[in-house]
């Protein structure tokens, strides 16, 4: 009976005897555990125009999305779609009229990760279309081609494997709108499958 009552002590001693080395240092967070591959992003922010269009178009609210694929931990390709809405400003009769912009851009993205945080730079070429010809009546061109000069941002991983959030800014050269530019600044939520 006494042997039975003390048998748990013997079992415990046997378990300790199996430790043969110091446990390895835990890497936390471990970026290798972050999901990688196909991803989507939803973003909210603002777009502001500069140059000739900046005089006539007020900054506006923007909503967009990206669909991309991580080729490597440090390199991805992505398609970016963004729409924004603006009002015409100035002293023309068209002042106050609403105007939407639609941008579609093919981009490459370089990432440097520092644990849970990463910095990235991105750039590419794309198209921009305006919803109306109101800029044409203001002696600016109506549509539509431009090239991103590039952009970048900061990503923060949530540690839930699939999700991260971040902020980014991108610069868009609107060659056909009298050489104007726009700057988009957005915050995003990313989901990696």
């Amino acid at each position, binding site marked *: 009976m006494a042997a039975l009552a003390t048998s748990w002590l013997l079992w415990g001693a046997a378990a300790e005897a199996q430790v043969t080395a110091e446990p390895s240092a835990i890497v936390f967070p471990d970026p290798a555990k972050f*999901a990688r591959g196909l991803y*989507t*992003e*939803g973003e909210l922010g603002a777009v502001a125009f500069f140059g000739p269009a900046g005089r006539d178009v007020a900054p506006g609210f923007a*909503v*967009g*999305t*990206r*669909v991309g694929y991580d080729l490597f931990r440090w390199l991805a390709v992505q398609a970016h*779609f*963004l*729409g924004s809405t603006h009002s015409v400003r100035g*002293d*023309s*009769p*068209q*002042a*106050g*009229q609403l105007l*939407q912009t*639609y941008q579609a851009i093919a981009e490459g993205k370089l990432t440097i990760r520092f644990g849970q945080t990463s910095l990235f730079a991105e750039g590419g070429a794309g198209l921009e279309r305006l*919803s*109306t*010809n*109101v800029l*044409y*009546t203001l002696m600016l061109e109506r549509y539509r081609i431009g090239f991103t000069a590039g952009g970048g941002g900061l990503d923060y991983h949530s540690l839930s*494997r*699939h*999700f991260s959030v971040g902020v980014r800014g991108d610069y868009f050269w609107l060659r056909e709108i009298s050489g104007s530019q726009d700057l988009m600044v957005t915050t995003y*939520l990313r*989901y990696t*499958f």
Partner: protein
Amino acid sequence: MPENHGGFSRLIPIATLALGCVNAPLYFASPTPILAVTGQNDAMGNPPRIENGLTLQFRNPNQTEQKDLDSQSAALGFAVPWIERAHVHLELTYDVTNTDTKDGTFAIGIDGASEYTKYDENVVAMALGAGNNNAPNFIPLIPVTPQILAAGKTVSGTVREDDFEEGELDLDAMGRWMAPFNAVLINNSQVNPIGLDMVPPNVVIPALIEIDVNFTANAAMSCNYGVRVRDDNDQLLHDSGDTLFSPTPALFQPPAMMATTN
């Protein structure tokens, strides 16, 4: 369940594109030079008036559309316009600047033409003034309330789509349905439909295809305007090989002038 979290991101571009496809307007700037008056009365002591306008260019209906128009016309018993008020929505925005050193009052009157009828307040005023020496009485198709404008100031305004809709109804009533022009022009049909008795309840009202702006002021002022068009059925003429719709609207003549010209 990671598959359930990416849906929102995928919906964003669809929603954005859907919003972008909803009836985006087209804008037309006023002809140059912009309307400007010196404020000096003419030899008859009347304040200066100036007018310009623009004609919207529409395409001709294709065979299917023409067939539909013909069948509608046959069913209703009267002509159905190609450019309908229900599908072409107009709005005019304007800026008026007082360039004088004194305050002044300005007035804007909008006339125009549908594919059937053209209205010109100057012609009507001339008819009404025939045989008397009274100051001309201008009755625009779509009036803008006169405003006092301080020296050096600018004021903006909008002639809304519902203002144009009222003017388009009045013009069609005068041109096709023998409505007394002064009754329908002076009265808002939604408040007092006097003069519209002959207009069929199922009438299809034509939209304006020509917009003429009359500007008058008793001080040196200028008026710049723009026209916004919402073209539901893509009837405006584009560079697509379509041919230009070229109706020949009849100039409306008030009864007094018709009596003198007959």
